[in-house]
C-alpha cells in the first residue's frame, strides 16, 4: 500500500483502518471525513447486528478525530489520472496509431464478456445494486457517495490486466506505479486511498454463483462479509433474505409482490411446478407422454397475466435422469399463451415443431 502511494509521488498514509466489508469501509471513510453515521440509521440500512459490528470495528481503530485533510480520494489512482498517464506513456512508446490499435485489440479480450463484463455482472454490479437499495434515504448520502469513490478490485481488475497486457505486448517494462497498484489491489478488498489515511476492507467470506457467473444461492446469502453484511441473490437479482431461506415465499406473498422481477425469482425459487399446484393454475388439455422419457408426462397450465409479465402458459416436465437422491427433478417453463398442447409446448422450447419433438428417442 505504501509502495502504491510512493510510486504516485504521495507521502505514505498516516492512518490505516481495516474494515470487514465495503459498507463498513464506506462508513469509516465518511467518519474520517467528518460525516459519522448515527447507529440507529446504520441499523436501518444494514440490520442491527451488522451495524453494531461495523461501529465496533471502527471505534476500536479510530478515536473520533476527523482526518486533517478529508474529502475525496486523491490517492494512488484517483479520478482516472493513473489510467490517463499510462495511456500517454503507451502512445509515447509506440506512436499514437499503433498504441490505439493495440488498445482496441486488447479491449475485445478484456472489456467484454471475458473479463470486464463478467466481473461487473457477477460481482460489483449486484453488490452496488444491493447497497444502493439499502442506502436510499437522504441521511445515507455521505455513505453512498463514499461507496462510489472506492477502489473496487472487481472493477479495477480488468483495467489493471488490460494495462499490464498492453505494456507486455508493446515490449515495454510495466511502470512501477502500475505494478504497485496491481500489488495493492491483489492484497485487499474494496479500499479508499485518502490524502493522509487509507481505509482497507477484507474480501467476502461467502461468494456463490450460478453456472452463468451471476451471484446466486438458493439457501442463504450469495455474498457475505465477516461483519454480517449479506447480499441474497437469485440468478443475479438481489432479493430479500426470506425469498431464498427456508421454503421461500408462499403463493399469497408472491402474488402480492409488486416487483415483477422479484415475483419471477420467488416463483423460480419455490419451483414452477409447485407454484402451479399451489396456485391452482387451470390445466390446459390432458397430460401427454414425454417422448424419449418413458413413464414421464408433460402438462400444460394457464399462467394468468401479471405473474410472468403478459399472459402465458406453463409447461411442467421432468428430467430424464434421476437426481442423486433417485427423484426426477420437475420444472416449469413459461411458453407463449397460444400454444395448444403440452407436446407442442415442449417442441416450442426446443425450437422444433410437434412432429420433430415427438420423434425424440432418448432423454437424459
Amino acid at each position, binding site marked *: 500500500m505504501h509502495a502504491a502511494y510512493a510510486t504516485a509521488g504521495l507521502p505514505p498514509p498516516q492512518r490505516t483502518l481495516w474494515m470487514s466489508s465495503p459498507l463498513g469501509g464506506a462508513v469509516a471513510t465518511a467518519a474520517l471525513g467528518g460525516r459519522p453515521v448515527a447507529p440507529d440509521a446504520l441499523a436501518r440500512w444494514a440490520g442491527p447486528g451488522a451495524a453494531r459490528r461495523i461501529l465496533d470495528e471502527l471505534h476500536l481503530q479510530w478515536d473520533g478525530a476527523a482526518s486533517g485533510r478529508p474529502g475525496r480520494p486523491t490517492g494512488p489512482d484517483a479520478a482516472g489520472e493513473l489510467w490517463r498517464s499510462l495511456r500517454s506513456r503507451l502512445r509515447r512508446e509506440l506512436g499514437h496509431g499503433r498504441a490505439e490499435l493495440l488498445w482496441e485489440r486488447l479491449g475485445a479480450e478484456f472489456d467484454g464478456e471475458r473479463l470486464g463484463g463478467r466481473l461487473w455482472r457477477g460481482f460489483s454490479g449486484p453488490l452496488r445494486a444491493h447497497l444502493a437499495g439499502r442506502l436510499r434515504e437522504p441521511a445515507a448520502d455521505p455513505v453512498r457517495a463514499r461507496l462510489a469513490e472506492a477502489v473496487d478490485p472487481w472493477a479495477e481488475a480488468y483495467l489493471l490486466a488490460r494495462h499490464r497486457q498492453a505494456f507486455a505486448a508493446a515490449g515495454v517494462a510495466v511502470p512501477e506505479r502500475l505494478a504497485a497498484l496491481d500489488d495493492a489491489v491483489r492484497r485487499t478488498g474494496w479500499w479508499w486511498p485518502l490524502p493522509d489515511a487509507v481505509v482497507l476492507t477484507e474480501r467476502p467470506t461467502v461468494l456463490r454463483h450460478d*453456472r*452463468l457467473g451471476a451471484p446466486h444461492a438458493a439457501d442463504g446469502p450469495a455474498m457475505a462479509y465477516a461483519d454480517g453484511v449479506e447480499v441474497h441473490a437469485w440468478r443475479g437479482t438481489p432479493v430479500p433474505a426470506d425469498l431464498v431461506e427456508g421454503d421461500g415465499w408462499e403463493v399469497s406473498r408472491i402474488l402480492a409482490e409488486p416487483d415483477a422481477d422479484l415475483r419471477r425469482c420467488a416463483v423460480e425459487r419455490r419451483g414452477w411446478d409447485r407454484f402451479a399446484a399451489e396456485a391452482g393454475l387451470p390445466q390446459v388439455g390432458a397430460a401427454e407422454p414425454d417422448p424419449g*422419457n418413458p413413464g414421464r408426462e408433460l402438462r400444460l397450465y394457464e399462467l394468468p397475466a401479471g405473474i410472468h409479465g403478459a399472459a402465458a402458459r406453463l409447461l411442467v416436465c421432468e428430467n430424464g435422469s434421476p437426481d442423486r437422491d433417485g427423484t426426477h427433478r420437475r420444472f416449469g417453463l413459461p411458453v407463449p399463451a397460444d400454444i395448444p398442447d403440452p407436446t407442442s409446448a415442449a417442441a416450442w422450447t426446443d425450437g422444433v415443431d410437434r412432429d*420433430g419433438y415427438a420423434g*425424440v428417442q*432418448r432423454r437424459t
Partner: protein
Amino acid sequence: MTTLAAVLDRPGVEVVDALDVPVISGAQCQGDLIALPRPLAAPATTPVPPGGVDLVPDSHTLLSCDGPACRFDVRDPGPSGPVLGVLTVPVGATAYLVHSEEHGANAFGPGTYEIRRQRERADVVRRVAD
C-alpha cells in the same frame, strides 16, 4: 475401441455413471439441449479436439470417440436463438454428450445433427440454463 469409462477419465471431463449408453441416430435430448438429425445439412468441418467441446460451460460437453474425429461447427446463436451448432459423426466414429452432474450421457451414431438449446418465454426470450 474407446470405452466410455476412458472418455470420462480424460482430463477436464468430470462425470458420472458409465452405464450402457445406446448409440442413436435419431433425435435425443439431454436436459436443456436437443439434437435433431439433419441428413440434408452441410456437414460440420471443425474437428472436435481430444478434450472435447464445451457446448455449455461447466455442464454439457461433446466428445469424439473411435474412428476419425467427429466435427462440430459453432453457430453463433445470438442473444435468443436456440441453435448452438452442427455435429457431424463420420462412419466408424461415435460422439458422446456428457453432463457434469445432472443428466446421463447420450451417444450419437454416424450422421449430421443440429444441436439446439431450450428456450422459455420471458419478457425477452432467453435461453434456459439448467
